């Protein structure tokens, strides 16, 4: 086939160069991916794997015992993503705009410090915030007390209404470094002549930002959005570290990643079910694929890019 042709023509070295990467990538990523999609069409009866077509999906979307958890996790996942887009991008743009200001002192220090949460593991981030927000330890309430807002404190992570939003904000806190860096890089590529030309037209400060810089960094914001989307729809670690596999309280912070983990791996008394797990993974795959396609064909091609 592909490699055979190259060998026949005496171009062995191309095969040698390509083979290790292609083999590992195919065997550990592509084949399992398709196998997972295939497993979603099977089920296990008396330790025999039998083909059931789309039955698992009917159960997942139709059987109330499953569909309630699934729609809950999916809805939560969209809320998780929505909070990221709403909070992470504006903060990222704001900080990047400040950092990219010419002749700002200590810029390198701020940059490194703002990026520190991004390098920490979810386990550290999850537990650290759990401790800080804990009503037992009282750091958050006493800090709010210092500014006279103690009445605002609630055990946010423990309440059904606020747990998911709190976790999303913690995740934003952790990852804001990435949008900051990417937008900062985009801002640095804007040539000074353009900004100077705008200045002579009287466009400075904020209006220069809205009218000139923001349109020029739109492609970066697009990339950040799709990276966030893909990241959020296979997120798992933070919720697991902070709330456990049951994504409490009462599944209020359950997202697709934690739902997949519980389903296929099993948890406490619930036995693992690889076939239903595969069905959930397939649904996640479809969602991510739709998101990536919307970005590639709907957004990326419409954003105007400027070459300098």
């Amino acid at each position: 086939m592909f490699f055979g042709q190259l060998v026949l023509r005496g171009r062995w070295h191309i095969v040698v160069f390509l083979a290790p990467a292609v083999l590992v990538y195919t065997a550990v990523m592509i084949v399992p991916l398709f196998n997972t999609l295939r497993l979603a069409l099977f089920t296990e009866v008396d330790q025999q794997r039998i083909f059931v077509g789309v039955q698992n999906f009917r159960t997942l979307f139709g059987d109330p015992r499953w569909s309630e958890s699934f729609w809950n996790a999916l809805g939560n996942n969209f809320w998780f993503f929505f909070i990221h887009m709403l909070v992470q991008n504006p903060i990222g743009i704001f900080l990047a705009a400040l950092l990219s200001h010419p002749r700002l002192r200590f810029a390198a220090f701020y940059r490194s410090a703002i990026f520190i949460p991004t390098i920490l593991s979810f386990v550290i981030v999850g537990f650290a915030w759990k401790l800080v927000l804990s009503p037992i330890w009282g750091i958050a309430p006493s800090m709010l007390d210092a500014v006279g807002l103690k009445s605002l404190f609630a055990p946010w992570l423990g309440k059904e209404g606020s747990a998911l939003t709190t976790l999303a904000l913690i995740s934003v806190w952790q990852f804001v470094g990435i949008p900051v860096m990417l937008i900062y890089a985009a801002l640095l590529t804007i040539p000074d002549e353009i900004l100077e030309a705008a200045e002579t037209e009287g466009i400075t400060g904020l209006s220069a930002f809205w009218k000139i810089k923001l349109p020029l960094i739109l492609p970066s914001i697009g990339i950040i959005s799709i990276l966030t989307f893909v990241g959020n729809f296979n997120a798992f670690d933070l919720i697991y570290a902070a709330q456990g596999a049951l994504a409490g309280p009462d599944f209020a912070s359950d997202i697709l990643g934690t739902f997949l983990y519980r389903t296929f791996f099993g948890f406490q008394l619930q036995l693992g079910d690889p076939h239903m797990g595969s069905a959930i993974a397939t649904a996640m795959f479809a969602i991510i694929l739709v998101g990536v396609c919307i970005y590639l064909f709907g957004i990326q091609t419409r954003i105007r890019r400027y070459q300098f």
Partner: protein
Amino acid sequence: MPGQMSRARRNPVTVAAMHGALIIYTLIALFPVFVILINSFKTRKAIFREPLALPNAETFSTIGYQTVFQQGDFILYLQNSLIVTVASLFFILLFGAMAAFALAEYRFRGNMLMGLYLALGIMIPIRIGTVAILEMMVATGLVNTLWALILVYTAQGLPLAVFILSEFMRQVSDDLKNAGRVDGLSEYTIFFRLVLPLVRPAMATVAVFNMIPIWNDLWFPLILAPAEETKTLTLGSQVFIGQFVTDWNAVLSALSMAILPVMVLYVIFSRQLIRGLTSGAVK
């Protein structure tokens, strides 16, 4: 006048406001880490009485660290994490650079297709295939070995590595390679002796991009290698904290110990990382 305007943008009030905003955000970014670190060196009483105070002669205690060292095998976890991360990076860079060189250097049928095939994995997370990966690892007996993790992370890192490295390899001058060919060097020698040294900066960028997600991953260690001998530092601290959740000294010390290695790596590689992120390598 333009000169006046740009001076106006730099007036002291604006500059102070900018520093103010950045300092506030820096404090928000560092505060939880700072609180964890200072309290890990305090007695239990002091942790609760004055959580924001620095440890002093009266409140200083290393009881938490003693618990961590007696109860958890953190040296083993650290060693596992190091082996997994270093081995995965080695394979990602070696295999990735080889494939990138083939795609960038040679014209052959299917070159484009092969590039697209390898690039698929940039956007699709490998976690989607976890169910079948676990079955495969069970079938091959690799479950609860570090090899399972190394293979998965290598496969996960290859697509972006090939993509970034082939961009850079296209920029290596043809004259150099052709001079090598005239001198009778084999294609392998050209790759290892001439091309690889020239793309070292790009390799460093790829390494730094991959290092942090591999080191911090919880999903695959939890599913593929949860045994005591193969726990990584991330999983090890997760389990340890889960067991000692009411022992605040131990929890804070375990967190501090998990923070330490990443901070060391960050101090060493932060310039490389930030340069990589801002150089357009991920556009």
